[in-house]
């Protein structure tokens, strides 16, 4: 037997969820679907290709307080703060589910753990939502993700007829299933069959785009003319990095009110000209060429060296939103098309 959430009970499912969790869900707002905290199940939508913003916002928020400090009587008191809460993120697509695991590696890796991210990860239950109809910008399959991949979800929903077939993947998922137990019907549905159907869905762009060998090829392409060719049209904005579910660069800033203050961790973008500019003025990535190269080399080469995977899940946001079409697909195609020989270019 498999648990099924009937379409008609979705609102109740969200309501019951809210009894124990705060809810983050896709909401349509001024013509875009965004993931945002909501208390209104009626506002939650499921008819979207993907949310314009990605779930990373709720694990790695754009602005995160790291600690408070207070200066008193010649002393300084530093009070570390971590996020407290219990949250469900609803409606995460497989590509975005996959992205969480990629960021996990960065923030867990090495000698130091990024505790802010991990605190939010631990206390958030992710409800995935399989894709019934991948769109023209989707290319998850390029990176081995399918419209039905549940990896990264605690609880996965597969739209099926008049409801959602439920797959519980983790303890957190189980807890949520129990919380919403009365709404989940046991039905005679073959989960594997349903999953298989989603996994087999065509993803036109992804199915034709191969990333095989790209990382290795890029080893020799640091000085390749492709970067000078691609980068001039870049606007230097942060759309790609801020919408990307896997980008995770940040900076820190202090906000002070008198003798107390906080240090905030804020998103930053490798596409911004001041990202690597040093106090003395030197900038190792002074032009758009170096910055565009950094972004794609990071995703398709550096990250692969460190973690053995590409730092992209084919969500297609850059295709949808980059105003100048400087997209992952475009770059992969360029790399695939280019000669492997390293060409030294002096500008």
């Amino acid at each position, binding site marked *: 037997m498999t648990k099924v959430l009937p379409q008609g009970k979705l609102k109740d499912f969200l309501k019951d969820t809210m009894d124990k969790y705060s809810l983050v869900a896709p909401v349509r707002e001024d013509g875009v679907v965004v993931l945002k905290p909501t208390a209104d199940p009626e506002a939650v939508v499921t008819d979207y290709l993907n949310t314009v913003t990605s779930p990373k916002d709720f694990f790695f928020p754009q602005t995160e307080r790291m600690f408070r400090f207070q*200066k*008193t*009587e010649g002393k300084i008191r530093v009070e570390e703060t971590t996020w407290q809460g219990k949250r469900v993120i609803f409606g995460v697509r497989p590509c975005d589910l996959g992205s969480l695991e990629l960021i996990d590696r960065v923030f867990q890796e090495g000698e130091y753990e990024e505790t802010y991210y991990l605190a939010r990860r631990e206390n958030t239950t992710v409800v995935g939502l399989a894709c019934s109809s991948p769109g023209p910008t989707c290319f998850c399959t390029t990176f081995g993700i399918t419209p039905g991949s549940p990896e990264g979800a605690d609880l996965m929903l597969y739209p099926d007829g008049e409801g959602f077939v439920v797959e519980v993947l983790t303890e957190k998922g189980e807890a949520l299933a129990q919380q919403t137990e009365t709404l989940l019907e046991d039905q005679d549905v073959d989960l594997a069959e349903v999953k298989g159907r989603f996994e087999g869905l065509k993803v036109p762009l992804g199915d034709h785009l191969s990333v095989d060998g790209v990382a290795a090829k890029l080893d020799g392409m640091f000085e390749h003319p492709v970067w000078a060719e691609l980068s001039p049209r870049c606007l230097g904005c942060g759309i790609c990095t801020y919408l990307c579910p896997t980008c995770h660069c940040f900076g820190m800033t202090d906000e002070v*009110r*008198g*003798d107390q203050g906080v240090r905030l961790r804020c998103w930053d973008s490798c596409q911004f000209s001041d990202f690597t500019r040093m106090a003395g003025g030197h900038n190792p990535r*002074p032009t758009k060429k170096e910055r565009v190269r950094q972004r794609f080399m990071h995703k398709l080469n550096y990250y692969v060296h460190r973690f053995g995977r590409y730092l992209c899940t084919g969500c297609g946001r850059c295709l949808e939103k980059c105003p100048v079409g400087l997209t992952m697909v475009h770059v992969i195609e360029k790399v695939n098309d280019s000669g492997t020989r390293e060409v030294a270019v002096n500008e």
Partner: protein
Amino acid sequence: MCWCGSNIASTVDLDRVQKAVEKLTNVVHVEQNKYTCSEPGQAQIVAGIREHNLDRVVVAACSPRMHEKTFQRTVAKAGLNPYLLEIANIREHCSWVHTSVEEATPKAIDLLRAAVAKVIRNTPLTTSTIPVEKRALVIGGGIAGIQAALDIADAGHQVVLVEKEPTIGGRMAQLDKTFPTLDCSACILTPKMVDAAQHPKIRLLTYAEIEEVGGYIGNFEVTIRKKARSVNEDVCTGCGICWSKCPSKAPNEFDCGLGERKAIYIPFPQAVPNKPVIDRENCRYFTKGKCGVCKKVCPAGAVDFEQEDELLRERFGAIVVATGYELFDHSVYGEYGYGKYPDVITGLEFERLINASGPTGGKLKRPSDGKIPKTVVFVKCVGSRDEAKGFPYCSRTCCMYTAKQAILLREKMPEAEAYVFYMDVRTPGKGYEEFYTRATEEFGVNYLRGRVARIYPKGDQLVVRGEDTLVGAQVEIEADLVVLATAMVARRDAAELAQRIGFSYDQYHFFTEAHPKLRPVETNTAGVFLAGACQGPKDIPDTVAQASAAAVKVAMLFSRDELETNPMVATVDEGTCSGCEWCKPTCPYGAIDIKTIEERVGKRTVSRRVATVNTGLCQGCGACTVACRSGAMNLKGFTNEQILAEVEAICL
């Protein structure tokens, strides 16, 4: 932190303030004293700086407009750059306007916090120097302007004296006698007029007006419009044939319209320069195209109908404004007949009527029928001390000139009766009270304390109905002539002139001195000084004193070859400046230019345009800083960083 005696300390709990301020970051030492501006107070600051090795100082005291300079000098004494000081205004803006300690104390803390936040962002500023053009412009050729011009010229500097009318002399020339000495106005004025005309360092420009003023202290650029006189001054000998032959007549302004003059005329016989001018509105040649008598009779061939206005551009180091006053227009007073009764005249008209060179040859005849008045009523405070219809201020001279006129009347015509309606008699001048006493006691002038309620005609007389508040009775006087002591008011074009030069004026359009007590002859625009009644009602002695004072200020300025400039000027961060030039049009001084700089970009040298500020011209208003979107333009002493820090500190 200053107690200012009890001025601050009684309303602001300075101990509480001290506790709060001591905790602020960067504050290492706080102390209070009773009078910080006093010598011991200042010494305490100097000692504090030395003892604690301070590099910034905040003084919490009175308004920076009062003592900023004082304390800047104080910190400089301790070896600190004077601009590393800020003032927290906890007196005018705090203790004097808030009554409870509970209100004033937190506010004082906020103000101090803002001052501290600002001062830590202060940077040492240094002055630079600009050359001084040692020529003065005096605007207005009345006694104030003449005196100022003579004094400056006597100090050895070039002066250009600009007068709007065809002659210098101004109001004083219109007066008959002067109080309290009763010497003849013309007798003491005309020699000075001649002195001014003949002084080798003074250039007279009569019948001329100020068109445009640019530049700044030490370097004003002034455009003067020399109106077409229609007479070539260089050739004219002032023989007078032209005006004796001229067939057109017009009311003589000099006689307040009581007499007539010709279309080509000199305003009065002792006019300086003694060169006529053609009043084109009344000249037949100009109105009808025919005549030209004057041109025909002129032996020197000086008449020039083709003459045009001439624009002179001159550079000056200083400007003295001495444009004088006008008289209040009493036609707003219904009770005095709305100016419609010909025998209700102003004090100045009275002066002309009793003046020997006036329209009646010095015989007091009333305007309506030429009858010699037997009963004359003087009414004081017409337009002054009257918020409803006139102005609230005291016109200062009326008490004395009314007494003078009553004396003159009684002296000339002992048979005539003089009545004076007054609210108060104000005689705060040397010999003034004695003069007034003479009027009442020696000359038997009848003083009635009370307002005139109405003046109305009865037969060929005027009934003046008023109240004698001392007696507590209505009085009615049947008068042949009523003289109104109308107030001195600012000239109607005063505001326009102030705007043109760029200094301020008060709500009555009198020009504003930089400080009512301590800087009474300066304006708040450096290099522009005030003399005479353009600054406020004044009698002749005060006017002359102020004119001489202004002259001394100019001479002081001219005693230096160079001036230190205001270091609080705009400055450009060339690294940030885009060279877009949008700052330029906001600068009233034309102080912003564009220059090309060269810089290294990668491996090549490229040139790029950036804004640059002429620190001699910049007066530090900061308008450009707001036009600059990137913040490349900043204002020293009021930087974006400083103001934002103040905002943030106050909002805590």
